[in-house]
């Protein structure tokens, strides 16, 4: 060890430390300990020396030796230093130990002293407690007796105290006193004295309960007092169910009074004609306020409006109901559950009772409100109703907040919805009656100029055209009537839409309900109101065609014409305008299928067509009646030579002219085929027969030679059939063509039923020429007139006993003169 060099000491220390901590040794050194390592643990001096001797030269050995010596020396000095240092430390430690030894000795003495003192104290204390033992027991006993006595005193005084409380009406105190004593009395009730007290108490409490009940029963007590009563009674073990019932029945009497007030108001208004009174009461805001106080003695005129009524209902009944619900819930439902009360499940029971109670009362209230709403028939001011309904609905929300499970709010909403539905129906009927009224007005307006036409001049169209006879106020012309009618209808629809729109205003509580967002807009307003009204117009127009029958007397033909134009205007513009307006105003979302604009337009067009057809039919009938009478009543065999055109023909032309003017006011001209310049100068081929060649007949048996004459050639041109009562187009020419067709066909059929003499035929020739001169200008295709007139003259010639026709020139002279 001594031979170790100082420079290698750090490595060695480390190794030692490693050994000490039994850390993992470096494996190669551990495995092959070098016996020649002077610092190693396996160092073998013998081996080392041998090795040195064998390996090293002398010089090297010498060096080795001196090095060794130097190292040994330095190790020695190190050793000495260490020893010295350790010695000093040892000395100081020895000193400290010695000093401690002295201190402990002193402490030991003091401890001894302490233990002796403690022993003395223990002894004293034992002595003292021994002496005090008896007195302590006595004191405890005494204090026990004292409390007992206090309790007993309380018990004995209880009846008196309760009585006093009763006198002072300090019921709460009495009840709390009694509650405290109750158990004790119960427990010791086998002892006679306590029993007496208990009986007394019972009696008193009975009285108290009686009083409380009395108070409860009295109507006059305030809600707060009432709730106090209930609380006390509950504490007195009064059965909660009974209390609930009583409370509710008490509340019911008061609410019923409210309801009766409302009902009385309803009864007052019932015998009065509501719709008329409504306006007067609305116009007179003073009266309703009085009527609530003394409604029985008021004149019927002072009947309340619906807003008043609902207000009263809300303020009296609904707010009272809310109050009752709130206090009831306070008392029975929401009270903290304590003691035995908790077990009885009062809240559930109470709540169900409350629900039943509220529902029955609300049902009565609703029925009253419904009755009142039903009386609301006047459609003048919708805002009042909407406001009333809004208030009604809003106030019910309070109930729903108080009583989440109740069906009341939904029923209320139902009523509102019902009212809205009713309202729409009323508006519809109002619109309908408005329409009918305006039709009556139009009828009257039409009747006036018709009279003046008949009276003034033969040129009837002149008056209708608007010039009017001087001196009189000019009657409204047809276009004016039409525009005023359609405008008033449109305005009425708009105003109704505006009124109905109030239902969906943003500030109205129920407008956010799904019904008012969806169904009300689409099914109610759009379908139920607008579409129904348009359909009604079409429907009633169609009825004019049917109910008027074929006599044509009941409906003036001009009205038919006017209505037809109205329906046509509806088809072209008004319907889509109205529906767009509705859709915009009501933001209709079409959940359910709605009537399409095109369908309505088609219906309107159909109505227009029907009306116009009917107009043509009626006018044609009027003219053909004239013609028919003129043909049927004359003796055509024995008539004189014609000198004039018959008056009836002139009348026919006049009437046709006035119809032409009339139709021209409302309908466009229409297309007509270009006519030849000499239309009025045609001649009739009298000897023509209406027989034609029969072509393509599979088994035709000719019975006579065919005369192919002029007419059959003309007939070929018109191979297509003439439909007499056929639908007309919406223009003047088509209408006039229809009327003339009907008239001339009648003429033809009538002529065929008669037998003519020579002059009869000539008269027909003259008449037909006259018609020819004037009628061609009205029709779309003058050839039609030619053809029909040819047929007439031809038929007359056929039916003539002595067919010698008049000279064409003579006919022309006669016609131009007439």
């Amino acid at each position, binding site marked *: 060890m001594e031979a170790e060099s100082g420079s290698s000491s750090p490595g060695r220390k480390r190794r030692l430390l490693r050994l000490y901590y039994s850390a993992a040794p470096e494996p190669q050194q551990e495995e092959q300990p070098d016996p020649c390592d002077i610092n190693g643990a396996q160092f073998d001096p013998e081996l080392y020396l041998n090795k040195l001797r064998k390996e090293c030269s002398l010089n090297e050995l010498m060096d080795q030796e001196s090095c060794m010596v130097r190292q040994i020396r330095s190790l020695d000095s190190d050793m000495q230093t260490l020893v010295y240092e350790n010695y000093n430390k040892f000395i100081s430690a020895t000193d400290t130990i010695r000093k401690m030894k002295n201190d402990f000795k002193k402490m030991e003495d003091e401890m001894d002293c302490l233990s002796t003192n403690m022993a003395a104290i223990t002894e004293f204390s034992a002595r003292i407690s021994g002496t005090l033992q008896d007195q302590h027991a006595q004191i405890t006993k005494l204090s026990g007796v004292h409390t007992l006595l206090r309790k007993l005193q309380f018990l004995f005084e209880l009846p008196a105290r309760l009585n006093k409380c009763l006198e002072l009406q300090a019921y709460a105190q009495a009840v709390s006193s009694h509650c405290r004593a109750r158990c004790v009395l119960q427990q010791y009730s086998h002892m006679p004295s306590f029993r007496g007290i208990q009986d007394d108490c019972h009696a008193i409490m009975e009285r108290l309960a009686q009083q409380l009940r009395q108070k409860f029963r009295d109507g006059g007590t305030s809600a707060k007092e009432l709730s106090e009563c209930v609380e006390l009674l509950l504490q007195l073990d009064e059965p909660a169910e009974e209390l609930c019932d009583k409370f509710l029945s008490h509340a019911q009497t008061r609410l019923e009074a409210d309801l009766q007030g409302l009902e009385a108001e309803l009864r007052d208004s019932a015998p009065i004609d509501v719709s008329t009174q409504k306006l007067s009461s609305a116009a007179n805001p003073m009266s309703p306020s009085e009527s609530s106080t003394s409604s029985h003695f008021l004149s019927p005129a002072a009947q309340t409006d619906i807003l008043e009524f609902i207000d009263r209902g809300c303020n009296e009944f609904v707010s009272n109901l809310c109050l009752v619900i709130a206090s009831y819930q306070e008392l029975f439902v929401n009270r903290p559950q304590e003691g035995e009360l908790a077990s009885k499940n009062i809240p559930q029971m109470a709540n169900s009772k409350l629900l039943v109670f509220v529902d029955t009362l609300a049902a009565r209230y609703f029925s009253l409100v419904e009755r009142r709403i039903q009386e609301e028939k006047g459609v003048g001011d919708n805002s009042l109703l909407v406001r009333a309904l809004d208030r009604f609905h809003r106030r019910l929300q309070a109930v729903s907040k108080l009583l989440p499970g109740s069906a009341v709010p939904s029923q209320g909403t139902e009523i509102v919805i019902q009212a809205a539905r009713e309202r729409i129906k009323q508006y519809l009927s109002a619109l309908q009656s408005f329409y009918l009224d305006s039709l009556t007005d139009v009828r009257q307006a039409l009747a006036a100029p018709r009279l003046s036409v008949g009276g003034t001049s033969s040129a009837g169209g002149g008056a209708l055209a608007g010039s009017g006879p001087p001196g009189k106020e000019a009657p409204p012309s047809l276009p004016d009537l039409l525009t005023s009618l359609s405008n008033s209808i449109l305005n009425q629809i708009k105003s109704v839409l505006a009124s109905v729109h109030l239902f969906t205003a943003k500030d109205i509580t129920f407008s956010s309900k799904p019904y008012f967002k969806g169904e009300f807009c689409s099914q109610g307003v759009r379908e139920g109101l607008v579409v129904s009204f348009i359909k009604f117009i079409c429907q009633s127009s169609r009825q004019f065609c049917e109910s008027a029958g074929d006599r044509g007397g009941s409906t003036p033909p001009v009205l038919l014409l006017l209505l037809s134009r109205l329906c046509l205007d509806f088809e072209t513009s008004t319907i889509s305008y109205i529906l767009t307006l509705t859709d915009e105003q009501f933001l209709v979302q079409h959940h359910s299928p709605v009537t399409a604009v095109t369908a309505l337009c088609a219906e309107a067009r159909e109505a227009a067509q029907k009306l116009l057809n009917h107009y043509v039919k009626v006018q044609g009938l009027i003219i053909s009646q004239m013609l028919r009478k003129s043909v049927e009543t004359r003796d055509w065999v024995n008539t004189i030579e014609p000198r004039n055109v018959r008056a009836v023909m002139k009348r026919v032309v006049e009437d046709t002219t006035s119809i032409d003017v009339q139709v021209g006011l409302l309908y466009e001209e229409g297309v007509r085929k270009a006519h030849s310049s000499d239309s009025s100068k045609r001649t009739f081929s009298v000897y023509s027969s209406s027989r034609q060649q029969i072509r393509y007949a599979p088994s*035709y048996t000719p019975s006579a030679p065919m005369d192919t004459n002029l007419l059959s050639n003309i007939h070929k041109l018109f191979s297509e059939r003439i439909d007499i009562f056929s639908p007309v187009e919406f223009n003047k020419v088509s209408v006039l063509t229809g009327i003339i067709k009907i008239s001339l066909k009648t003429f033809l059929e009538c002529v065929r039923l008669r037998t003519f003499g020579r002059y009869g035929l000539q008269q027909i020739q003259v008449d037909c020429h006259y018609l020819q001169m004037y009628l061609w200008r009205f029709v779309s295709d003058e050839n039609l007139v030619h053809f029909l007139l040819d047929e007439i003259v031809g038929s007359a010639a056929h039916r003539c006993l002595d067919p010698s026709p008049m000279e064409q020139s003579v006919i022309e002279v006669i016609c131009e003169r007439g």
Partner: protein
Amino acid sequence: MEDDAPVIYGLEFQARALTAQTAETDAIRFLVGTQSLKFENQIHIIDFDDENNIINKNVLLHHAGEIWHISASPADKGVLTTCYNKTSESRVLTCAAVWRMPPEWESGSHESPDDSSNSPQTLELLCHLDNTAHGNTACVLWEPMGDGKRVISLADSHVVLWDLQESSTKATISSSATLEGKGQLKFTSGKWSPHHNCTQLATANDMAIRGWDLRSMSQIYCIENAHGQLVRDLDFNPNKQYYLASCGDDCKVKFWDVRHINEPVKTLEEHSHWVWSVRYNHSHDQLLLTASSDSRVILSNMVSISSEPFGHLVDDDDLSDSEETHHEEKSKEPLQDSIIATYEEHEDSVYAVEWSSADPWLFASLSYDGRLVINRVPRALKYRILL
């Protein structure tokens, strides 16, 4: 199909009067009376050969005047009545007479059916149904299914019931009734009801339809304003005793239950001009013909108010075995009221239409220009009704 093609026959004169030869139940035969003021009027006897689709005609002369109405005796094939215009001294009077066809007309015509130069034979006058006091005769009605001894003539405002005696050579008035009312009332047409033992008559004047009891000759009902305008014709449902159909100038055909005269049972409005004639099919009363001055003939199927609403009733014999299948058919295809066909072969007003008395599926229509068209009920419908 060849079967459905119409057969057309042309007369050289204008004509309004058409009737089936009622007493003839084997051959399909129609009688047409012409109207001509200048030439001799004729009665064309049209025989239709159903198998060969050929028309055979025979012409009999009617010297008396132009024929406005013709009707054949239900009992005697050879007897017929006409209403004709008699013109004398610039007066026109419509008279009626009973005629007998010459017995040999059939043999005589067979030689040359197309040869009109062959001198036609003349009708043999049996008797006049005349009474100048009664005025113009509108029509003559034979007692339906009777023995050909009783006829009714409607003259102006009179209903006259005649008894024909001594094989129709003598006519005596057995009773008569007069229509009372203001104005000049004139019957336009009438029909003798085949029901109630032939004791009822229905007449039309102006817009009203009236029913008469022939025993008392008194009015039993009156449908005022039956049509909006003149009533042109009427016909009794052959199977339902209270039902009748009427037509008129308002282009409508109306069906009436005479027990409830306030409202028509049904109204058809298919024509575009006056309807001049309406005829129930004699066997299948759902089939109805109407003729109109719009030159059309319309065949309608009025199932809903017919006596056999679900098609032809099965005979009692095969009812038992075919009942089930029949029921199935019923439920399968209940026929709707509908127009079966519109016949447009005419080019002038059609004033008369008649069912054949021999073949219930065949009918003739006559237009003013003298064109007679023979048509058949469409075969599909025929089988549907029969099966």
